[in-house]
């Protein structure tokens, strides 16, 4: 754990106790079994709003507390530990960061207070194919009169069914594959021509496929500058990646805690299975991997707060190391539980399914290794 300020420790402790009392993994199971459309409990998200979590990144002038990404990460980690479902990451971090990074004064005034009070849920619509590749954006935005017309579709939009609006990455010039000619737009979910359908995924969380058919938007919907949106998008994605990594830290922590507990209680051959060195050494590897991954995640979040020069590098490092670690831990979770880990009645499967989703979102390990190599120049 980073050397936390007193305030950060308080917020973390608050999150920890709220999550374990009000939103433990049992609640996630209830939600999944009820097949709720937006895939989270609305009352849980309201409670998060009440606790000020949606305002953590927002300057005080717009109703937030401006506590920064490292603090936000502490909360996400606790949510990850119990797989608490909510749009806090998709909207409170990614959507909010989009406005903070790209919004002009009017847009900030219009969006930030609503994001803080939870009345707006703004999420990023970026990928169009099975693999994360933001420069392959093809969804067309053509100038028309005073504004633009959007045509195309997005897949796997985080919390896309709950969103009240989308930040849409669109192509305003150039060809898919080029990082030139991309622009970001703010599009209300109820705009004419927007249709969405729930994407039912193994992790039982909220995703939507969204189609934009001749959607007309005004020039004030442009976020950041025309054609030059890739840098903004990449910066925004990095913040999302760091946030994902923080949540993954919690998921891995929860999965490891379950595993360790089982190693200490399950008996075979007359002794607890944790006394077998073949398992003990793997547990030691997981523990070590966790410490190393944690350092990367916290460094990425702190670098964003400090506006450091190596944010991109650190975010890829964090997403990749955390992804590798979570991959391992989620597999060992099942393996070390034996048959019981395979049953739906047991929670282990939830962690495994969530792990792969988190690894995939905003670039898997291979994506970030490649990006890291390019950033280092070889």
């Amino acid at each position, binding site marked *: 754990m980073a*050397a936390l300020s007193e305030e950060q420790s308080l917020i973390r402790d608050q999150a920890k106790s709220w999550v374990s009392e009000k939103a433990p993994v049992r609640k996630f199971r209830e939600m999944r079994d009820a097949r709720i459309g937006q895939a989270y409990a609305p009352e849980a998200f309201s*409670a998060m709003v009440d606790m000020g979590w949606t305002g953590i990144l927002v300057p005080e002038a717009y109703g937030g*507390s401006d506590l920064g990404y490292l603090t936000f990460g502490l909360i996400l980690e606790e949510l990850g530990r119990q797989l608490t479902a909510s749009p806090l990451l998709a909207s409170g971090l990614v959507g909010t960061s989009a406005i903070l990074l790209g919004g002009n004064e009017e847009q900030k005034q219009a969006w930030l207070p609503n994001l803080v009070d939870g009345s707006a849920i703004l999420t990023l619509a970026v990928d169009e194919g099975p693999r994360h590749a933001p420069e392959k954006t093809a969804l067309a935005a053509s100038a028309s009169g005073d504004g633009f017309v959007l045509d195309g579709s997005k897949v796997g939009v985080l919390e896309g069914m709950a969103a009240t609006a989308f930040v849409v990455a669109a192509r305003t010039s150039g060809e898919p594959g080029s990082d030139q000619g991309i622009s970001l737009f703010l599009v209300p979910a109820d705009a004419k021509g927007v249709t969405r359908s729930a994407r039912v995924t193994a992790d039982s969380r909220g995703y939507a496929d969204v189609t934009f058919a001749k959607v007309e938007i005004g020039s004030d919907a442009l976020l950041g500058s025309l054609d030059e949106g890739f840098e903004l998008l990449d910066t925004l994605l990095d913040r999302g990646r760091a946030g994902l990594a923080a949540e993954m830290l919690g998921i891995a922590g929860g999965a490891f805690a379950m595993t360790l507990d089982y190693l200490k209680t399950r008996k075979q051959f007359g002794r607890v299975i944790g006394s077998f*060195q073949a398992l003990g*050494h793997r547990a030691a590897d997981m523990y070590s991997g966790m410490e190393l991954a944690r350092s990367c995640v916290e460094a990425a979040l702190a670098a964003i707060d400090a506006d450091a020069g190596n944010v991109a590098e650190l975010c890829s*490092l964090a997403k990749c190391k955390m992804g590798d670690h979570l991959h391992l831990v989620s597999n060992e979770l099942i393996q070390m539980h034996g048959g019981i880990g395979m049953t739906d009645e047991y929670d282990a499967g939830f962690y495994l399914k969530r792990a792969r989703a988190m690894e995939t979102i905003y670039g898997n390990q291979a994506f970030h290794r490649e990006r890291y*190599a390019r950033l280092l120049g070889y």
Partner: protein
Amino acid sequence: MRTTQGIREHRERVMTATATRTDQGSDIEAFRADVRSWLADNFPSALQGVPPAMEGASEGKHAADMERWRERLAERGWGAPHWPQVYGGAGLDHAHVRVLAQEMGRAGAINPIPMLAGMGVTMVGPTILEYGTEEQKQRHLPGIASGKVRWCLGLSEPNAGSDLASLGTVAEDRGDHFVVNGQKIWTSGADISQWCGALVRTDKSVAKHKGISFLMLPMDQSGVRTRPIRLISGASPFCETFFDDARAEKDDLLGELNDGWNVIKRLLQHERASQTSAAGPGGRQKPEGLHDIAKRYVGVDTSGRLDDPDLRARLTQHLMDAAAHKLTAERIAAEARGNPEVSAAASIMKNSATGISQARSELMLEIMGQQGLGWEGDVFAADELSTVREWLWGKAISIYGGSAEVQKNIISKNILGLPETTQKG
């Protein structure tokens, strides 16, 4: 439940509380300036990046400079800067030690004293500081802190490696001294050391951990004989050590009689803590980045990528591992603030450091291809030859100081609380 308003109010309180902490920073900066100007006056520039000759300070073309540099450092207590001044250190806290290291790094200055003192600065000294009597501290520490007295450690025996407690070297009580008989092995630097910290059996009638003591004895006596062992890397840095009625004074028993196991546990923690740098064997970081070296040997494709995608992927993974290690070392230091040298994380960091360092050597060898196989001769550049030697030498780091497997035992048992993972022998 706390609202945004609550968070904000709380923050104001915290900010006022932290405002008082900043004057500490100015003291550090003054110290930095002091170090910088002292280095400019005292560090012989010919020694930039030059480590001391392993055989001792007296050899090589830098010998005179090295001896002068050692003396200057020792005068300021900067050979072992965190030790108290009365014992030859400078009494610096961790933050100041770090500044000193940073500034020396900037100037290309290597502190030769920890190397000249063998196991003295990193292991024996800190243990004497904790367990020694006042008289022992005064007798032994200044020699170590000045780099004038080299120490070796006689722990391992032919039949006592990882299972160190089964050692058989015995020390017999003869009133004012002990007589020591037995054989040690893998004793690093035994042939060039003046003193030895040895683990000996002083009571055979009790359980194996309970009858062990830690003795300090001079190497220059007729009862001690050493025989160098040649390693796969060609070097002979360690020896077999034979004790044949060797003598150790009663005053040189460190800690209580038969309490040597606790003394050595502590000493080994210091050893692990000193081995957590991923810089590579000998702690030297090549100035040129690994990916630049790779580009030089392998070449790049039309889009500027290393012209071997498989190597590139593994190289990237390695560099990420190294970055994660470095960030973790920084995090541990920030969290511990006080004394980060000995912590529960030492086992994690030792394994991580050795894994990274060994992977780096393997990658270097692979990158260099035919040039990474040289043993001697002028078809190979000096750094190619040293790559091969370091690769071979580096295999040792996951064996000594508690092997990689033993570290995992420690983590699973002591940190994770899993039951004993080893069968009792």
